[in-house]
């Protein structure tokens, strides 16, 4: 059965690793929903967070093949409930919205969001939350007919258990 699986991979920060990793999905024709690469808590080591819908059998094989990439230090897969996942999204909405809601701080409070730019033409709202919360606000604004543009970050994740063991062998943990 297709489910969302999130792969976390720690790699050497080398050119080409990204292509090799995405190639493992491409070979099995699995579409990547979101992908984020950034430096991990250790200098020189990148952390990949890749979300895709597939079966457990497939993701298990994909992860095995990702691990075989020379520059990959470790890779594992998770279901979303095993991870603390947050996304950031920006919503550009028409300033009519503010007019109808009165005060601007009331608006941000009511959406659990932050206004980061405000002018007569539009308002930019920033919201951090789970994928569901981000999408709910998007749908809500769309229904009200005020959403002009929308962009999101992809998942920022932390494992509920410490990730230390992933990095354990490297002997240069600089988490502190």
């Amino acid at each position, binding site marked *: 059965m297709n489910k969302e699986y999130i792969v976390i991979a720690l*790699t*050497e920060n080398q*050119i*080409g690793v990204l*292509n*090799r990793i995405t*190639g493992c999905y491409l*070979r099995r024709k699995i579409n990547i929903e979101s992908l984020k690469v950034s430096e991990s808590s250790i200098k020189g080591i990148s952390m990949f967070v890749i979300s895709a819908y597939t079966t457990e059998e497939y993701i298990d*094989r994909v992860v*095995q*093949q990702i*691990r*075989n990439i*020379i*520059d*990959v*230090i470790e890779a594992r897969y998770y279901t979303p409930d095993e991870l603390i996942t947050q996304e950031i999204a920006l919503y550009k909405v028409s300033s009519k919205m503010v007019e109808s809601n009165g005060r601007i701080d009331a608006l941000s409070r009511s959406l659990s969001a932050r206004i980061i730019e405000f002018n007569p033409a539009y308002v930019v709202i920033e919201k951090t939350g789970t994928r569901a919360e981000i999408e709910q606000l998007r749908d809500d604004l769309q229904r009200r007919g005020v959403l002009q543009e929308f962009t999101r970050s992809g998942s920022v994740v932390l494992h509920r258990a410490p990730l230390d063991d992933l990095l354990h*062998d*490297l002997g240069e943990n600089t988490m502190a």
Partner: protein
Amino acid sequence: MANKQKIKGAEALLLSLIEEGTRDMFGYPGGQVIPIYDCLYDYRDRINHILTRHEQGAVHAAQGYARATGRVGVCMATSGPGATNLVTGIADAMLDSTPLVCITGQVPSSMLGTDAFQEADIISMTMPVTKWNYQVTSASEIPRAIAKAFYIARSGRPGPVLIDIAKNAQVEEMDYSYKPCLSLRSYHPTPEIDEEGVRQAVEMINAAERPLILAGQGVVLSGAERSLTEFAEAGHLPVATTLMGISALPSGHPLFVGNLGMHGNVAANAMTQHSDLIVAIGMRFSDRVTGDVQNYAPQAKIIHVDIDRAELGKNIRIDLALHADARTALEAFKVGLKYRERPDWFAFAEQERAVEQKEVFAHTDDPAGRFITMAQVIRNLAEIEKGDAVIVTDVGQNQMFSARYSRFNASRSFITSGGLGTMGFGLPAALGAKVGVPDKEVVAVLGDGGLQMTLQELGTIMQNNIGVKILVLNNSYLGMVRQWQQLFFNRRYSFTELENPDFSAIAAAYRIPARRVTKPEELNGALREMSEAPGAYLLEVAVMPDENVFPMVPAGASLSNLIYHD
């Protein structure tokens, strides 16, 4: 080489190759590797560079060399078309775990990405077919890149590595010093064996009534041939080999029950289906070995040993997976192993061998005595060579007949394109093998189709006096496809018939002695003449046009559903 010296990148490359033990390499020059070739001119006494006639020839020759010697094969090509011509061989080496270091030239780094003359993004192109690849853009990177390349190519599950060297890096000066690569923090090629798993495995083997060892190329790659023999003898366990595992155990060994898979031996496949315990060592359960996976080895528990963790459980269900080097595992298995006679099981092997004798071996010659058959050629060749020749095959019927009827005394004696099934592999791989093991008799067994895919390498054989024997089984067809068309496509022989040139005349043009035979009574004399020839020799045998390889497991069918005849 701890002392630093100032030299050009091209020279650093050659010194690094020498540090890694490179004595022979295969290549083809071109615009973006001229500086390397210029330097090679001064190193002719230290590196034997063989100029092939096509880059595909160079990479297949390096493969044949690596497979025959166990050393890393090295090939070189220029940028653009030179590099892209290597890709087939690299993909072949990837699937067959052949250690290669492929050097390609590249446009100067200042011109990368500009569609410069003969620029190809070979790093992107070879990403899915290399174990690792790297683009060098400054001379100072060369020793480290080469050290890593050799380390990665030959450790763990071996494979091809490509190093793309921008032209400016070849001509820049750098401070040279060499340090071999001994480890990488992101790569752990030597797994530690799970002791508990070993204990369980031995217990399962001791308890098994109908055990069968499946030996793959992993046994050869880890140098575990002797361990395999000792393990099998200690437990009195029958051994079958995959196509890539052929010659890991001498063909005449009493515990050897034959080859597995689509055109394997009846006993090996039947024993798979009746076994209660499969012990698979260094093999990957390819679809050509398993047939229908749902009905594969239905009564057996399966122990799978492989150095590549991604292979464990990839294709079939496994009862006990051991992530380990083949030799380590086989040595560990010997401890506590019980010798058991298992007379019924060996009687079953004998009975199935008799089935093959009756259904297949008894019918390999042309009953009318008119045509020579391919089976006959390979069997007679085996008698003449007495198991001492290295047999290098092309792909198709010639390959399957060679696998079925050759005899081998020593490991690394059967060199074939297993995973990728690359036609055109045979001739260049054979010349590469001969360069690697000049004291052995090397016979290329080719079909008329495959020979013509890399025919130009006859020039390489001529120019370098490479004493390789070339045996062409000419049925004027792309025989294996013709066989499928006959059996599964209603005898519609769509584009498989070949009108061939006079191969002896072609060989003569390359000053290679040649002979063509057509009648069964001429065969043995001609084979003997080939075998006794001091240098290269081409023997063309015109064989029965519609001979098929049997037995056969149709693609996707269960191993229990063998076809024995048309």
